[in-house]
């Protein structure tokens, strides 16, 4: 099953720009479509669609999430075995292996460009030893401390 685009689509192209699999196409300002055979179910289109026009692979409507709040991979180098499975799993190509660090000659993955990360979580999903967790940024302290609206 792949993600699908509903008739709500206005053809803004946000999903086309973020889709790492080149699975989405359509004319500007016209409803777009997703090629099922190319879709990798990463959900990035659903997170960026301002109209809520994307349905996930089980038919649920996706809600847009502010990009600053998307979870990012946190890598535990002590558990990491430097196998680079996560780097290959990343459809956005935003992970790379570091050089040696002190006496540890085995490199470890790091996020090369936070803005490129699409929060799919496949790096964490494919890591056989669970060295990666997806963590959403914490709200700013000021916001967190703000009293609830009355």
């Amino acid at each position, binding site marked *: 099953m792949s993600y699908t685009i509903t008739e709500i689509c206005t053809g803004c192209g946000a999903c086309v720009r973020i889709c790492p699999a080149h699975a989405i196409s359509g004319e500007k300002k016209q409803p777009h479509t997703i090629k099922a055979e190319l879709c990798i179910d990463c959900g990035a289109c659903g997170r960026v669609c301002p109209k809520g026009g994307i349905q996930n692979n089980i038919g649920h409507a996706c809600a847009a999430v502010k990009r600053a709040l998307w979870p990012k991979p946190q890598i535990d180098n002590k558990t990491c075995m430097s196998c680079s499975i996560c780097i290959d799993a990343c459809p956005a190509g935003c992970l790379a292996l570091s050089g040696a660090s002190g006496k540890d000659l085995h490199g470890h993955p790091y996020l090369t460009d936070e803005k490129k990360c699409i929060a799919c979580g496949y790096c964490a999903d494919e890591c056989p*030893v669970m060295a990666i967790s997806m963590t959403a940024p914490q709200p700013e302290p000021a916001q967190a401390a703000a009293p609830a609206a009355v």
Partner: protein
Amino acid sequence: MGKGYMGKILTVDLDTATWTEEQVSDEIYEQYLAGQGLGAYILYNRIPAGADPLGPENLLGFMAGLLTGTGSLFSGRWTVVGKSPLTGGWGDANCGGQFAPAIKRSGYDGIFFKGISAKPVYLLIDHDKIELKDATGLWGKDAVETEEILMEEHGTDARVATIGPSGENLSLISGICNDRGRIAARSGLGAVMGSKKLKAVVLKGCMRIGTDNDYEIKRISQKCNRWVQFDLPKWPGFLNAYMGTGIGLLPTQMAIDGFLYKVLNRMWGTSSMNQMSVGMGDSPIKNWKGSNADWGIAKSKTVNSDVFTKCETVKYHCYSCPLGCGGICSISGKYSETHKPEYETVLALGGLIMNEDADSIFYLNEVLNRAGMDTISAGGTVAYAIECFEKGILTREDTGGLELTWGNTEAIVALIEKMVKREGIGDILADGSKAAAKKIGKGSIDYAIQAGGQEPAMHDGRGDPGFGLHYSVEPTPGRHTIGSQLYYEMFQLWKAVKGLPKIKPLYMKDEKYAVDEGKIQQAAACSKYMNIVNACGMCLFGVFLGIKRIPTFDWINAATGWDKSPNDYMDIGERIQTIKQAFNVKHGIDPREYKLSDRALGLPPLTEGANKGRSVPIDKLRHDYWAHFDWDPQTGKPTTTALKRLGIHS
């Protein structure tokens, strides 16, 4: 959910610049798995008998393993398959790095090429787009330069496999490179790629690779990783040399547990064996006519294991490898870095030609990797040339003024540079020692140590007759990555496969040279198991840890959802072995002609050193090995009964 494999192959016709996608049935995967096995099935059925290996009818396949990308460990090797121009028969070679999963991420288990392009091209698969792009500007560039240019153009997440100038020049000992000079070196398949005017394959895909039971795969991987991460404190590398010498002197042998090799590999990589193997009698010296008595510790100390780790700036892990036996070394001179030279390279460019200069080995490693030339065959061919020079068959006039004597580093470097460029005598030598001996004549074939045209690797069958047997009987001869008595000990297959003989923990070395049913079962088990390993894209150094620590069969079952027993898988290994042998017979190969050169079989035996007086009882071993597979024991041709039983169309 999925079955570990993608279920599709792509065939690119370079004559017409068109391509077709093809579904592969589940039944074929159940019979041949993927990787080398699927490649063997396709090539056996589709390359017409007698096809010119460098002609349009040959097929060149880039294959991904069944376990690659599934979350299993040690499963990052891709395999190139084709009819070998070096041996005239079945050809394959495999390589690590990051290229293997890229084949599956592009949506395929294999990408095949047929025909010949009118001009140099490279294949680009960029997600939904497939293109053959002009490579005229890349032709002549070395493998590292080519990769850098293509990654500059297509992004750092592009994965590139390319030939260097050796493949372009149709050198029959050329291979295909990826990840800055790692190389699928054997069988001369770089020349096949060059003949097709195919410079490179560039893959950019992100397809998901589904499995039946992700949870189970990860559970096994975590268990396996605990063995890999268990380290011992590092000891000085010179002790390895004394350990080897001690083993060489003993009349007894202890069964080797692959965990020990894992420890060594983790510390030094394969260079851990540089001096140890010499002392044990595992390394051929001086074109296989010398021994550790000629290249003892005093001489081999220049290639001590520590020499190769001192300049290591970072460990190198192939895809899905928790071990990291590779490394990137900082060097001085023309090139600033190189992959850490492997044991095979060090000995082929060291002890085999009596070269004690480690700097030259680092340099030549990079030269050959960039050119895309096999370091094993290059070293073996230089050894042949030096012996020809020693015997007066080649003169300074022939060599372009080079004083081609044992250990003359300057002349050796110059000769290899000539081979890479196909200049002067290098033009003759660039096709390997057997082809050179045919041109040079004068009885020089006696000094060309080869099996079916391919130079054997740096493991001496006189020290372990299993190597001598596998060099001589495998459908792709001269290969050290399939079997030996040592490998059988490390695979520990008897712990999973019913009916296989268990190895005694301690035995007399003389027992290794006796031919009995157990030895044949062991050899056949190695061949069958390695077919499974290669069909899965797994790494030999991983499976050396033993079947209980690296449970290949359990991983396959978890990935595919099958419920096959270890013996069922060994039957698949037998099918792959037989179809490769049938491929050779179909193409007119007489399997008897793949026998390793007499000298390397101890005929006559050495008179000193660790292998003094040892010979490989090759005729009896080979006869019984062929009989075990239900092939004609006299000719090595698969019988009709065997083909029928295994479902192979004759």
